[in-house]
């Protein structure tokens, strides 16, 4: 592997020059001739009857081209995971982000003005904002037609015999933990432009992270609107951040489509920052009861968890996060007896969606906090209990995950050594150290029936290469990683590769940028395509050089004989030979990679991912006992990544994920009052700034995953998974209080210290 020249290198991101010069075009920057501006009127209340909507004045405003209400949505169209969400609501609103009406006008200002002219009469209804209240006997039903506020989703995992294991355990720790609503805070807000051609085929300019799936969603919508057999084309602008927020389609997109249909003009809707806060779908809050046990030597005997998730008013992918929570619940450390039950509950809050980590952070917070409690009961160092139970290659876990490469122990040891665990732990001098580990899918995740990605490679333009991939660039660097892989195989420079990844008319199928899958799946797909086109090139070159293809290779754009370096031919010439010969041909290769992973069966067994990503985070904190302030003195994030295709971009994922995790642990929280977001701005929602960055080290552990492209596994999400419990554990080591409710604010620390009687 040492002969690699592109893979493993710290190569700058291909699109960085475009971005540092301001030349990158985001949806905000995009204009289409004749375009109108759409704006949405949201509900005033979280739960209310809509008695009357009067759009008369708005319609008469000069420059307004269309006003829509729920009555204009054809055939009762609803979208979402359980198809419970109409793009414009009629009759009743179920959350404060419910869309009531929409306007298209010749300017954004006029559209805004028109919204003010729409008169809505409501009758406010009592709302339910706590999932525990919603579960009570006799609680009013959010969706009457579903007969229950608990979603009919079967989240239950049982393996082994937890009751027996409890009896056999020497030590048991149990407690409750809770987490808060947090939001993605993409710097580029959501938006789209919907445009129809004469034949009612739709083009969406979009920043979706799931182009192929969104295409299907829109097609369904068009069908329901009565437009059969139409085509949908999605063109992605440069995407100003994803983190899971763009893993579904939303009301605003269907509203733009409806406005475009009605006006016969392209319609653009872009969210304001305020809308981005309250009208996008965040990571839900959870309430978790957990109990874990071990034998007298510290070996884990069982793990039992019960979880309630606030789903909010409508169902998106947030309601499926328990499927990924199961990954750490069943398989973080070796533990054979597992019981997990999760309930997703309708409330009148905003509705939840995917966010980086997809449920894993909430589950890991409970598991890893409770593991320290167990270690304390058993009188074992938290580092040791983790080493004793660490996962290993070759293991088959209770969910039938087949563990291939696994660097968990190495990660734990890196953290311990770099933190000086032995020297710093247990001092109780207001400084303390803590750690937490993680497992996540690292070789894709078969959530849908397909987990595939297609690649087409063509060589034209004097030997330059176009790589047409289904995968999306959402800032994570997929374009660069794919280029490195292709360049490595073809022996050409990164700059000679052009990646096309933003147009469904051209790009092949892919199920989206999620599950940390892009390097693994799109990388493998591109690797296969590159090998295929290389074989074609060598075949042509072999004929021309009078050599056998096996003894040819390519370097710096020249095909040469490994036996006789004098025998060589540049790629541009190879290309000319295939074009300018009788019976000529093209140099094109295509490859579809669908990983050999498995959907869960009805008992949630199955090898969800081809390989699993591991890591451990360690942190040293100092707690100010007078203020409750927690200061991070040192942060170590060690990750088993298989192989770093690009260490620089990989570290960027770890730093970025880590700081999101620190925000989650110590400050970020969406504050709702009666379902209305009260801190929907950057002043009151405490997203970390440059001044909140602690000294941090990203440690890359390579384990050479056989199924990964050049040995790589995914790293998109893991960086924020173990952050909160690592910090909570360090605080406990420092001052002896355990905060079980995120975020860990100074007030909570102070209160806990007071309760403990440590402050006079």
């Amino acid at each position, binding site marked *: 592997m040492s002969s690699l020249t592109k893979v493993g290198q710290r190569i700058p991101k291909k699109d960085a020059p475009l971005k540092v010069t301001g030349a990158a075009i985001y949806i905000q920057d995009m204009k289409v001739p004749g375009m109108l501006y759409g704006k949405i009127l949201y509900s005033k209340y979280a739960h209310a009857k809509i008695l009357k909507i009067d759009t008369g004045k708005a319609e008469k405003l000069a420059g307004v081209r269309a006003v829509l209400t729920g009555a204009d949505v054809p055939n009762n169209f609803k979208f979402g995971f359980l198809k419970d969400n109409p793009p414009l609501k009629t009759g009743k609103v179920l959350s404060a982000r419910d869309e009531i009406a929409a306007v298209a006008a010749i300017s954004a200002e006029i559209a805004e003005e028109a919204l003010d002219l729409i008169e809505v009469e409501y009758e406010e209804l009592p709302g339910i904002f706590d999932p525990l209240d919603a579960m009570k006997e006799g609680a009013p039903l959010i969706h009457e037609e579903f007969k229950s506020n608990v979603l009919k989703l079967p989240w239950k995992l049982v393996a082994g015999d937890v009751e027996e294991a409890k009896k056999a355990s020497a030590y048991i720790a149990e407690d409750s933990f809770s987490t808060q609503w947090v939001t993605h805070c993409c710097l580029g807000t959501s938006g789209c432009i919907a445009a129809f051609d004469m034949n009612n085929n739709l083009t969406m300019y979009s920043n979706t992270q799931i182009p192929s799936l969104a295409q299907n969603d829109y097609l369904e919508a068009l069908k329901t609107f009565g437009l059969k057999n139409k085509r949908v084309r999605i063109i992605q602008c440069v995407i100003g*951040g994803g983190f899971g927020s763009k893993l579904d389609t939303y009301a605003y997109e269907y509203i733009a489509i409806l406005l475009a249909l009605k006006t016969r003009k392209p319609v653009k809707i872009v969210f304001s920052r305020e809308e981005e806060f309250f009208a996008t779908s965040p990571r839900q809050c959870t309430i978790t009861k957990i109990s874990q046990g071990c034998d007298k030597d510290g070996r884990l005997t069982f793990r039992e968890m019960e979880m309630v998730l606030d789903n909010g008013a409508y169902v998106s992918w947030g309601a499926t996060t328990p499927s990924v929570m199961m990954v750490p619940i069943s398989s973080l450390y070796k533990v054979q007896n597992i019981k997990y039950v999760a309930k997703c509950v309708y409330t009148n809050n905003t509705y939840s969606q995917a966010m980086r980590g997809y449920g894993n952070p909430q589950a890991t917070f409970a598991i890893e906090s409770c593991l320290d409690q167990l270690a304390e009961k058993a009188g074992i160092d938290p580092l040791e209990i983790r080493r004793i139970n660490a996962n290993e290659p070759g293991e088959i876990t209770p969910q039938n995950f087949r563990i291939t490469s696994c660097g968990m122990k190495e990660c734990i040891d890196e953290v311990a050594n770099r933190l000086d665990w032995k020297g710093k732990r247990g001092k109780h001098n207001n400084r303390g150290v803590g750690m937490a580990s993680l497992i996540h899918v690292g070789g894709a995740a078969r959530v849908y029936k397909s987990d595939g990605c297609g690649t087409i490679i063509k060589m034209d333009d004097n030997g330059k290469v176009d790589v047409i991939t289904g995968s999306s660039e959402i800032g994570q660097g997929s374009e660069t990683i794919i280029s490195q892989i292709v360049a490595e195989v073809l022996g050409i420079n990164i700059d000679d590769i052009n990646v096309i990844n933003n147009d469904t008319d051209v790009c092949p199928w892919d199920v989206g940028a999620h599950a940390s899958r892009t390097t693994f799946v799109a990388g493998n797909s591109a690797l296969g395509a590159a090998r295929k086109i290389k074989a074609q090139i060598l075949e042509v070159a072999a004929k021309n050089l009078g050599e056998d293809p096996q003894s040819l290779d390519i370097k710096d754009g020249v095909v040469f004989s490994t036996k006789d370096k004098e025998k060589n031919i540049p790629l541009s010439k190879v290309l000319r030979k295939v074009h300018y010969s009788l019976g000529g041909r093209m140099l094109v290769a295509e490859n579809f990679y669908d990983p050999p992973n498995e959907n869960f069966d009805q008992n949630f067994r199955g090898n969800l991912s081809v390989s699993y990503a591991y890591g451990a985070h360690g942190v040293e904190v100092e707690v100010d006992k007078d203020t409750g302030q927690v200061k991070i003195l040192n942060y170590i994030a060690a990750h088993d990544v298989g192989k770093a295709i690009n260490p620089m971009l990989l570290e960027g994922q770890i730093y970025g994920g880590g700081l999101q995790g620190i925000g989650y642990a110590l400050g970020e929280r969406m504050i709702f009052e009666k379902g209305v977001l009260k801190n929907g701005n950057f002043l009151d929602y405490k997203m970390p700034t*440059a001044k909140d960055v602690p000294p941090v080290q990203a440690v890359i552990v390579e384990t050479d995953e056989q199924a990964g492209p050049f040995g790589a596994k995914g790293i998109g999400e893991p960086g924020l998974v173990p952050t909160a419990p690592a910090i909570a554990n360090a605080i406990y080591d420092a001052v002896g209080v355990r905060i079980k409710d995120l975020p860990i604010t100074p007030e909570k620390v102070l209160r806990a210290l007071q309760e403990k009687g440590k402050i006079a």
Partner: protein
Amino acid sequence: MKKAITFTLNNEVIETEVDPKWTLLYLLREVLEMTGTKEGCGYGECGACTVIINGQAVDSCLYPVMEAEGRKITTIEGIMLKSGELDPIQQALVQNGAVQCGFCTPGMVMSAKALLDEKERPTEDDIKDSIAGNLCRCTGYVNIVDAIKSVAGGR
């Protein structure tokens, strides 16, 4: 009622008519169609709209357009070198992996540039202060701070 103003934009004198209610950002993005300067919030809390006015990094989304009168304004479109090469700070951000989605990047460039123009040898605290008003959700800021340091250290 529109009013005439004159100011220098990226070394070019601009005479134009503006609505006094506009912000400078509105003039740049919507009227002049210079979309390199981004809008991340529109109320002074994210720094994506940062431009340099008479040497100072300023949130253009809060800056009343009439205030531009007679001033010297530099935007992201105006800092590439005459040779067409990237400014050293742009180069450093590229080389250090300091760009992910890139939405914050033009604002980061301008804040960092204002600092580097003002101070020969900024400290780490100076650097963090200079971009404290520029939010980035992707990078964790580590590589951005390193990039700015590398420019400061390299001269």
